[in-house]
């Protein structure tokens, strides 16, 4: 949004109608009734070449200080685009212009030689990334400190643990001081503590007014790092502009299930189900985009087929975060009986779900209560049946039902931890 306000910044990179074509070989099919001559010809030339456009008609501009995210699914052409910009391969058509030095943090540790010591590798790697000896000299201590390598700096890298190697490599790469920095999923390195540190370093670079191009599948990193985004799909650019909108679009492409109705019949199921019933179809009602406020009901119709008589069947609706962590569960105690051969619809309304803002996968699970008071899973859809997004906008503060005197802000999380004790001491 800031980009539109402040448009007198100079254009630092201009990508103009870029396309990249690859040739792929396909095995030709030989007709069954082919004669000898044809067969011979087939063996000589088994393959036919097809053109495949990994990227086509990509145009955008980056102004100084822009932090552009490139989002898209695997195979959308993100990495190809970064390769073109960082001059690793050449475009088939179009033109890219930029001012200054571009440096890419594509794959951490590229060019590390296991025989060389950490120190030697820092200089070699720095040179590979386009730094001069003076530049590396100047930053050497900082690199060693950041990587937490310590005395091992004069040990051959082959004796390092993989974590040490990655830390050193990231430390070198992150001290580059280019005019345009390209980041491709490098933040998923090392342990959690080091990842935090990397992210912090990236944020520092981002807030220093550097121009950044970033590819990541982790939307929160993109939210934190970037101010603009483009969305790629099958090599075409389908959106350019605001981050949130781009993420929504990406989620739309990413999860084909961001639809309001979906067939569940053929989705993968976990094992250990008694399979007396099967969920066939889900229809999300009244909300075309599956975007909700905290107090908006999530309503859907679930069509189920009963294969064997089933008694006392209930439904569990599980909301999971992007990484699979369960965030909340809604239990619908139907305790309904179904007869074999029936196909019925179950209407579900989750009112005032109190979910914190974010994206959720919704999983569905049919359960059966047995006379002995335990649950049997009848049918279950993993990992998700559909997706919902809970908006940050509007009613951010809501009142917890069980404790109506207190405010609860959605972004504080999904559940409130109740048993908290403490006192002022001293």
């Amino acid at each position: 949004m800031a980009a539109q306000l402040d448009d007198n910044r100079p254009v630092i990179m201009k990508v103009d109608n870029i396309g990249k074509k690859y040739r792929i070989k396909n095995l030709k099919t030989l007709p069954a009734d082919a004669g000898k001559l044809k067969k011979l010809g087939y063996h000589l030339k088994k393959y036919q070449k097809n053109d495949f456009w990994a990227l086509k008609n990509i145009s955008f501009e980056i102004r100084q200080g822009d932090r552009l995210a490139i989002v898209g699914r695997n195979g959308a052409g993100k990495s190809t685009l970064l390769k073109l910009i960082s001059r690793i391969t050449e475009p088939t058509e179009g033109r890219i212009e930029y001012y200054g030095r571009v440096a890419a943090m594509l794959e951490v540790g590229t060019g590390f030689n296991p025989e060389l010591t950490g120190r030697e590798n820092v200089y070699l790697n720095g040179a590979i990334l386009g730094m001069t000896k003076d530049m590396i000299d100047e930053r050497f201590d900082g690199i060693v400190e950041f990587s937490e390598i310590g005395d091992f700096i004069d040990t051959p890298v082959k004796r390092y643990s993989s974590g040490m190697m990655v830390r050193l490599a990231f430390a070198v790469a992150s001290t580059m001081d280019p005019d345009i920095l390209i980041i491709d999923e490098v933040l998923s390195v090392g342990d959690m503590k080091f990842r935090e540190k990397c992210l912090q370093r990236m944020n520092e670079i981002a807030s220093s007014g550097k121009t950044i191009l970033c590819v990541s599948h982790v939307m929160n990193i993109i939210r934190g790092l970037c101010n603009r985004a483009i969305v790629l799909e099958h090599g075409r650019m389908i959106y350019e502009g605001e981050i949130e909108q781009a993420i929504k679009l990406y989620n739309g492409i990413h999860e084909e299930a961001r639809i309001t109705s979906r067939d569940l019949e053929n989705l993968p199921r976990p094992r250990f189900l008694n399979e007396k019933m099967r969920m066939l179809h889900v229809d999300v009602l009244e909300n075309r985009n599956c975007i909700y406020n905290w107090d908006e009901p999530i309503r859907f119709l679930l069509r189920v087929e009963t294969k064997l008589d089933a008694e006392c069947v209930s439904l569990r609706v599980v909301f999971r975060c992007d990484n699979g962590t369960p965030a909340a569960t809604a239990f619908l105690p139907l305790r309904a009986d179904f007869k074999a051969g029936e196909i019925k619809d179950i209407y579900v309304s989750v009112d005032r779900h109190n979910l914190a803002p974010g994206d959720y996968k919704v999983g569905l699970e049919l359960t059966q209560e047995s006379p002995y008071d335990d649950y049997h899973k009848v049918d279950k859809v993993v990992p998700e049946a559909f997706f919902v997004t809970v908006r940050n906008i509007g009613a951010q503060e809501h009142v917890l039902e069980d404790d109506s005197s207190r405010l609860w802000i959605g972004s504080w999380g999904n559940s409130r931890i109740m048993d908290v004790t403490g006192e002022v001491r001293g």
Partner: protein
Amino acid sequence: MRKKKKTNVSNLKTVIEANGKNRQYWIDIWRYRGLAFNLAKRDITVRYKQTVIGLGWSIINPVLNMLIMTFIFGSVANLSSDGSAPYSVMVYAGIIPWTLFARNFTLSSAAFIKSAALMKKVYFPRIIAPLGESIAALIDAMISFMILLLIILISHFTSGFVPSWRIVLAPLLFLLPAVLGFFTGLFLSPANIRFRDLNQAIPFLISLGQYVTPVGYSFAEACQNVPENFRFVYEFNPVAGVINLIRWCIIPDNAFHWPSFISALVCIAIFVPVGIALFRKGERTFVDLV
């Protein structure tokens, strides 16, 4: 000073176009020269890591080679040396340019394959990679040259051999076999991406070449003994030309051989531009092919 340099870089405009026109290429080579030296350094350090003798190996190798050739050609086959020079000096003076040629030829023809992993990840002018290795080869040649001086000194006391004053030209003239090997290899490098057969054929060609080229024997001897019909193999052999050139620098009564020397110059004049052109063409597409 630093600051000023930096703003200059920021004003640098880069244009990437479909047909591979890249005006920055030659400027980039200059900017990345540090990388070439770093790669050369890596080449040398890695080669002798975890060896006991270390850099000594780059001395032992040619010296042993020289001793064997001196024994076979000089003592067993009893070929005559070049002018007043002891056989060992003559052979050693041939081994240095030959090794330079052969190593440069091998490394530049395999330039894309050897550094593919690196080139697929990071941009630098691709020619920097073989250039770095070539620098390493030149450094090795200089070390060998020191040994040659030592051998000459020893033979001065044992047989009274006095080298020509032209010996001061030798270190500079080592560039000729290096350039010749480098650019003929460069000429083959794009073909090496598609047809890995070349990778197998080149070591074989090199060892064959060592016998067709007067490395272990003198140029004059070869021209004398070879039948008239086959004499052209030597007379117009560019590598023979540069080897004889180096010997001419060291041996006072060496007969300078013009045809082979001119053939070397012609080859350089042809292969430098053609090699570069083919390499540039290859580097545009090789990432998608390797």
